């Protein structure tokens, strides 16, 4: 028996998300009294792979094959399912990011394994195997029993702290056969954001709503984000109006994020918006309307004009850095 964790890489590097996953897998393995195997697919150097051992992976398998350069959901599912079988995995852990959402359901059918999706804490019990997950877009949490022999868990981003352990990992190459004719996904073009902090990765997010009044008013908000090393986001009306790009829309139908700090500026806090940000550890609200529902979700608030407040926050931060 083992816990298998799939650790995605980005251009050969792991992110904090990958280490969160291994830390989580390691804590689950402890509950089950078993060990963790981490699986990496793609071209990742040995030094980078070994980092997974710092968070509790005892075995690190690297599957590298030219056919796997593109994420083809069927091919990746086959590789992970094959390794899960060889490792006799009873739990398979994947991120609840875009890749995880693409692979976990296919793997579920392939392995006949129930999925606990978007889990944000350790299983509540292992017999019956019960997980805790978000439901009704954050308006409730569900206790879900997974009845199948193999279980798949997809972990919500930024929901589990890194746990460093002494590294005693063994690195192995996983031999996987993938026939070129099997790959159905053909990538015509790639369009990557560069140099920006990704919204889903960010520890701090500064977000603007309709209360910002005009797309021309975003300067001070971006300055605050830069001063904090934060990503920028926006509410749905702002992206619908085309003031900011759709990639920044956080909320029920946009991105669902859980940063350590979410600063909502000129956002009233409709249920649909809160559905995307309610898992943030701290919420700060800046709004002219003292009765705005966002203040019910926030731990810190300022009632006032963002155009005056934002520059003063930037100044206060600069003072500290001196």
């Amino acid at each position: 028996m083992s816990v298998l964790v799939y650790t995605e890489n980005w251009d050969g590097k792991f992110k904090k998300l990958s280490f969160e996953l291994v830390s989580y897998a390691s804590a689950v393995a402890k509950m089950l009294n078993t060990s963790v195997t981490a699986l990496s697919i793609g071209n990742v150097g040995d030094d980078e792979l070994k980092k997974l051992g710092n968070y509790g992976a005892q075995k690190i398998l690297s599957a590298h094959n030219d056919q796997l350069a593109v994420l083809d959901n069927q091919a990746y599912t086959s590789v992970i399912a094959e390794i899960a079988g060889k490792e006799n995995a009873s739990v398979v852990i994947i991120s609840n990011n875009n890749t995880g959402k693409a692979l976990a359901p296919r793997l579920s059918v392939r392995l006949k394994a129930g999925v606990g999706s978007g889990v944000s804490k350790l299983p509540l019990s292992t017999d019956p195997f019960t997980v805790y997950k978000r439901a009704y877009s954050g308006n409730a949490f569900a206790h879900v029993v997974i009845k199948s022999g193999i279980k798949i868990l997809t972990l919500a981003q930024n929901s589990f702290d890194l746990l460093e352990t002494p590294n005693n990992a063994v690195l192995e190459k996983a031999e996987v056969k993938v026939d070129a004719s099997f790959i159905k996904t053909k990538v015509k073009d790639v369009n990557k954001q560069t140099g920006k902090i990704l919204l889903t990765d960010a520890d701090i997010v500064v977000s603007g709503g309709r209360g910002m009044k005009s797309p021309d008013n975003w300067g001070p908000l971006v300055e605050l984000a830069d001063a904090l090393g934060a990503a920028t986001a926006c509410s749905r009306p702002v992206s619908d109006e085309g003031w900011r790009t759709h990639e920044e829309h956080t909320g029920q139908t946009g991105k669902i994020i859980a940063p350590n700090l979410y600063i909502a500026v000129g956002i009233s806090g409709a249920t649909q918006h809160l559905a995307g940000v309610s898992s943030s550890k701290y919420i700060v609200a800046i709004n002219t309307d003292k009765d705005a529902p966002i203040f019910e979700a926030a731990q810190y608030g300022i009632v006032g004009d963002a155009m005056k407040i934002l520059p003063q926050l930037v100044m206060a931060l600069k003072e500290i850095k001196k």
Partner: protein
Amino acid sequence: MKILVCISNVPDTTTKIKIAEGNASIDTAGIQWVINPWDELSLTRALELRDDQSTGIKSVTVAHVGPAISEPTIRKALAIGADDAIRVNAESADAYFVAEQLAEAIKKEQFDIIMCGIESSDYNGSVVGGMVAEFLGIPSVSAASAINFEGGVPVITRDIDGGKEIINVPVPFVAIVQKGIAKEPRIAAMRGIMMARTKPIKTLEPVAIEPLTQIVSFEKPAPRSACKFVDAANPGQLIDLLRNEAKVI
């Protein structure tokens, strides 16, 4: 070509969710049921593609797994513009159960593109679309934010962490769609509502399959502590609180 759009019905997204006695379910009294927001966007895009003659798409069918009581949701999809519908007559037991029912219904007909919303706003599972594709053994494209046709061939944009990929996969495939796929959900016009009354809904009986998961209870999110207000005349105090009290910056 034919498109199938899978739809789920969910409580209206402004609903205050209450948990029923015994915590095993939510209190459905007074809940307004709507088409899941992502499914509604997915249906809108399917109809746009059908209405564009150059795509060669002839029809849009909607499929739903649910008891007769959920028919108003299906009628709404027909009123918006779907040509016909399939309802699998079963209470949803879990995502695996629903996906298998959908896959069995799909096998009975020939569809080229099957569209599923990336998530339902009730169970937030994000798994049904991918499961349907695996049950059918066909490709899936997840986090699709655009579907267009170039020279009669579907071209899909999928979101990856930190960017987008423009890809081709052969039909039939499952597109698991998200925000961006359509601008605004299409709204039913009076004529559409009248026409929907006579559009066919085919009812299928479910296949026997054991669900793999079961929700045993619900709980409300832990209440947040009251908001601490900082005087607008001294915003710098906020930075101090975030540094020294919350310790997040």
